[in-house]
C-alpha cells in the first residue's frame, strides 16, 4: 500500500540537504507553506537555492530562511516589498545572489520544466535589461526571448486537502504556484489542512494528481494572515 503521508513536517523535509534547490509556493502569505519552511530551518541545512515569487515578508517563511543565512541564491520576480527587510539586508551585504525573473516567465519556465520542454521563446522582457545577453528571435512579426526551464530538487507547497496518493486540491488564491511547482520538482512535499480518505476527492476536481507529489503532511494551520503593512 502506497501511503505518502508523513508523521510531521520534520520527517517530510528530512531528505533536503545542503546545496539543494527548493521551490516554495505562495504569493505573499497565501499558499506559503510556513510550517514546512520552519522545519527546513530547524533541519539546519544551508547553501540553498530558493525559487519563490517573492523574497520573504516580515519574519516568517522565506524571510526567516534568509535571516538565518541559509539561502545562497534566490530566483524570484518581486524581492522588494515594504517588509522584505531580511532580503534587503542580505542583498546589500552581498550575502545573497538574486536572479530576477518576470513573474510570467517564472511561471512559464516552471511549467516548461514540469512538461519536459528544453526551452521556450517567451514574449516577456524583450527589449528590456532582463533580456540582456539572451537569445532573441522574431517569429511571425513578434519578438521573443529564449528562456530555459526552472526545475528544482524539492518543492514545498501548501494545499487545502490531500490523500495518501498525493492528490491535492487548493483553496482560493492560495493555489498560485503550487500546481506548477509540484510538476517541476523531483520531490514535492505538500502541507495540507487535512488528509482525507482515498477516493473522497472527486476525480474531476483534483488539481494536482498524486504522480506529482511525493510527501504529504497534515498541518492544521492557523488562518493565513495579512502581510504587514
Amino acid at each position: 500500500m502506497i501511503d505518502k503521508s508523513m508523521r510531521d513536517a520534520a520527517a517530510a523535509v528530512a531528505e533536503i540537504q545542503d546545496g539543494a534547490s527548493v521551490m516554495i509556493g505562495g504569493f505573499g502569505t497565501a499558499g506559503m507553506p510556513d510550517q514546512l519552511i520552519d522545519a527546513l530551518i530547524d533541519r539546519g541545512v544551508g547553501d540553498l537555492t530558493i525559487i519563490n515569487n517573492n523574497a520573504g515578508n516580515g519574519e516568517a517563511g522565506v524571510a526567516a530562511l534568509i535571516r538565518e543565512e541559509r539561502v545562497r541564491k534566490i530566483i524570484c520576480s518581486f524581492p522588494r516589498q515594504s517588509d522584505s527587510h531580511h532580503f534587503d539586508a542580505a542583498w546589500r551585504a552581498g550575502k545573497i545572489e538574486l536572479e530576477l525573473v518576470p513573474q510570467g516567465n517564472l511561471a512559464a519556465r516552471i511549467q516548461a520544466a514540469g512538461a519536459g520542454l528544453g526551452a521556450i521563446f517567451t514574449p516577456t522582457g524583450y527589449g528590456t535589461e532582463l533580456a540582456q545577453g539572451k537569445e532573441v528571435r522574431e517569429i511571425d512579426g513578434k519578438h521573443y526571448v529564449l528562456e530555459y526551464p526552472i526545475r528544482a530538487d524539492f518543492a514545498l507547497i501548501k494545499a487545502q486537502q490531500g490523500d495518501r496518493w498525493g492528490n491535492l486540491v487548493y483553496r482560493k488564491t492560495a493555489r498560485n504556484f503550487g500546481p506548477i511547482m509540484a510538476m517541476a520538482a523531483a520531490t514535492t512535499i505538500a502541507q495540507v489542512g487535512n488528509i482525507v480518505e482515498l477516493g473522497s476527492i472527486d476525480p474531476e476536481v483534483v488539481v494536482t494528481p498524486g504522480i506529482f507529489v511525493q510527501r504529504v503532511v497534515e498541518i492544521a494551520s492557523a488562518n493565513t494572515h495579512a502581510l504587514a503593512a
Partner: protein
Amino acid sequence: MNRMTRDQMAARVAQDIPEGAYVNLGIGLPTKVANYLPQERDIFLQSENGLLGMGPAPAAGDEDWELINAGKQAVTLLAGGSFFHHADSFAMMRGGHLDICVLGAFQVSVHGDLANWHTGEPGAIPAVGGAMDLAIGAKQTFVMMDLLTKQGTSKLVDVCTYPLTGLGCVSRVYSDLAVFDVGPGGATVIEMVEGLTIEELCRLTGVRLAHAGETEAA
C-alpha cells in the same frame, strides 16, 4: 486649468471599458478604476495571482487572506468567478486573452514604450513582478499617470530614460491633464482638461503632439 483628481482619472478610464471586457488593473492607482465601473456592465476583472471575476473589497473583519489580489489586498469573488494556477493566469495575459490592462508608469514614450518597473537608481533593489507580462500581453495597454513629475518634468517623453518594461506596448495614456493615443505614429491628444491649450500641452511635455481631428500642432 483644472487638473483631474485621481478619482476623476479613474472614472475617465472606466468610461472606456466596454461591457464584456476582460481587464487587469495594475497595482496602485489603476486599482481605483474598479470603483467607477458601472454596476450594470458585466466587466471581468482578472488578478494575475489566479482569479477571474474579482469583486470589491470585503467589509472590515471579513477578510480572507487566501482571497487576495496581486497587490496582496483582500478581495471578494463574484458569482461566476474562478480560481486557477499561475501558469494559466499568465497564459491569460501573455496569450492575448485579456482585452485591457491598466498600468501606472514612470515614463511612456510617444511610440508607446513603457518604463514602470525600476528607477534604475544605483542600490535600488530591482523588482519586476508581473509588470513586463502585463505590459505586453493584453490586447490594449492603458497607462494612468500624472503627466508631470513633482519637479515638473514630463512623463510622456520621446525616449524613455528609465529602464524599459516593454517596447511599443502602450496604446493610450490617461493623465491628469490630457488623454493621449501613443504608438508608431507618435502621440495624439484625444482630450484635454478645461482651460488647457494644445500649445501649452506641447510646452509642458516638450514632445511633438498631434491633435485628434486636427493637423499636427507642434
